[in-house]
């Protein structure tokens, strides 16, 4: 039984990888490195308010290009969670697309300075990216304050990862942060 689960798992991983290969091969002609400009050339990504943050998520610290492995690792966060994976043994390292890792990925989109806390400023930055110039500073500030107030449990006016997880416990993260490949 366990062997069968393993096999199914491998098949779906294979499909995922092959689809990623297809993505890159159809998009690029010059080797297996992606640069920021390559991402920015995608119109639907360029008009996404969080486009820049998403692009940054691919690039490791301070580097300007990402290789295939890195690209895959980031994309792997969006693999749907299969049912048979939930019963896998817990001894191995947690897969990249677990609920916890998906949430961690989202947390990192907010947390720019990587101090494991979302400060008021960082929240304001993301809010500002999403609303553009349509909401005034004061209103935005109040929204940020209220959001932090509701989520903050230890009173440090910043959101830690644990508080982040708690706020999102009712949200169906698996469904919202997954991309299903057709095959």
């Amino acid at each position, binding site marked *: 039984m366990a062997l069968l689960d393993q096999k199914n798992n491998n098949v779906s991983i294979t499909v995922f990888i092959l689809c990623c290969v297809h993505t890159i091969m159809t998009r690029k002609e010059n080797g297996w490195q992606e640069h920021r400009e390559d991402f920015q050339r995608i*119109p639907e990504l360029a008009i*996404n308010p969080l486009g820049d943050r998403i692009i940054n998520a691919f690039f490791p610290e301070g580097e300007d290009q990402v290789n295939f492995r890195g690209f895959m690792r980031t994309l792997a966060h969006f693999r749907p969670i299969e049912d048979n994976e939930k019963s896998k043994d817990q001894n191995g390292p947690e897969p990249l697309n677990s609920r916890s890792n998906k949430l961690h990925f989202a947390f990192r989109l907010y947390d720019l300075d990587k101090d494991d806390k979302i400060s008021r400023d960082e929240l304001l930055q993301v809010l500002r990216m999403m*609303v553009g110039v*349509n909401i005034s500073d004061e209103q935005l500030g109040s929204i940020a304050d209220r959001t932090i107030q509701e989520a903050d449990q230890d009173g440090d006016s910043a959101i830690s990862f644990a508080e982040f997880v708690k706020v999102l416990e009712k949200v169906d993260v698996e469904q919202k942060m997954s991309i299903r490949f057709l095959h």
Partner: protein
Amino acid sequence: MWVLVKTLEWATIRLQKGAKKPQPQMPRTPTANGIIERDETPMEKEISLLHRADFEFSHIFYFCRKGFEAIVEDEVTQRFSSEELLSWNLLTRTNVNFHYISLRLTVVWVIGVIVRYCFLLPLRFTLAAIGIISMIVGTTAVGQLPNGRVKNYLSEVVHLTCSRILVRALSGTIHYHNKENRPQKGGICVANHTSPIDAIILTNDGCYAMVGQVHGGLMGIIQRATVKACPHVWFERSEIKDRHLVTKRLREHVADKTKLPILIFPEGTCINNTSVMMFKKGSFEIGGTIYPVAIKYDPQFGDAFWNSSKYNIVSYLLRIMTSWAIVCNVWYLPPMVRKEGEDAVQFANRVRSAIARQGGLTELPWDGGLKRAKVKDTFKEEQQKNYSKMLVRNGSVGSLNAETESD
């Protein structure tokens, strides 16, 4: 030539049956509908599905996922490269995942290469040369005649004959549908654009007045020769920048009912024949009757799409001449006129829908110019505006006011 095409059709189908066998262990190439399941729920529905109306951390999930879907497979950039085929047509250029499969297939492929390069190519090249030379000579000769009915008739004959020679030179098999809707004089003919050959394909069946930029070299010679015989509208490079001048000249041409219909490609650039992109509204502001035409190439025999960032015109023509054939369908659609109260953009979209529907192409609201240029920031600002409206409308500002009042 027709026999050749039919033979190739038969041979290709037979070879496909043979080629399909070694392929099962390879993953199936994705269909044109895409490789990921896209969730098309609009922003409002998705975000308001969440429990409360004000900002939540989970709002970024929507943008995040849309962003990743765009990275994996976006609708726009794939239109600027050649379409992928489900089954291989023995041309390496159409198979992105090409690698060695079996000896038998390689042998067949080598035979195909020999046939195409050593047999078909010289034949086609000669024919093309004959066609171009006769076009130049013929139109110059006709151009010497005084204006009048005889001249128009002769110029039509010359244009049609040369077009037919050129089409044969490319081994083109064209099926025209609904010929009763063919563009009349004084009208404007609009079509979707896949390659420079589109013009030749259309002139094979009727005479049009071309619109375009003045080029140098061989193209320039052809342009200068043909304009003597037939009133084509060639613009200098500087004139193109001036939109009013362009519109004025086109309007004059259309107003003269004896002049041939103008041929315009409103997309402005070559798209890979799987979709129709945004039509530029300039052509639809001129007035007059619009005759839409849908052109769809059959990708089995050759890829007609010109990827101008990858290939220049000469290597493009070489590729075309070494394909199996150019097979396409041309549908003439019933004429359309701008309705009362419809502005140019809406009219353009209406025409575009008709063309897309007929040709079985998808419609995309994106501008073909995105091939080279970056997308405008206004689109991003629109998304931001929509999101802000949701935040504000759903009461976060309202409840803020209530709070301050109660203080």
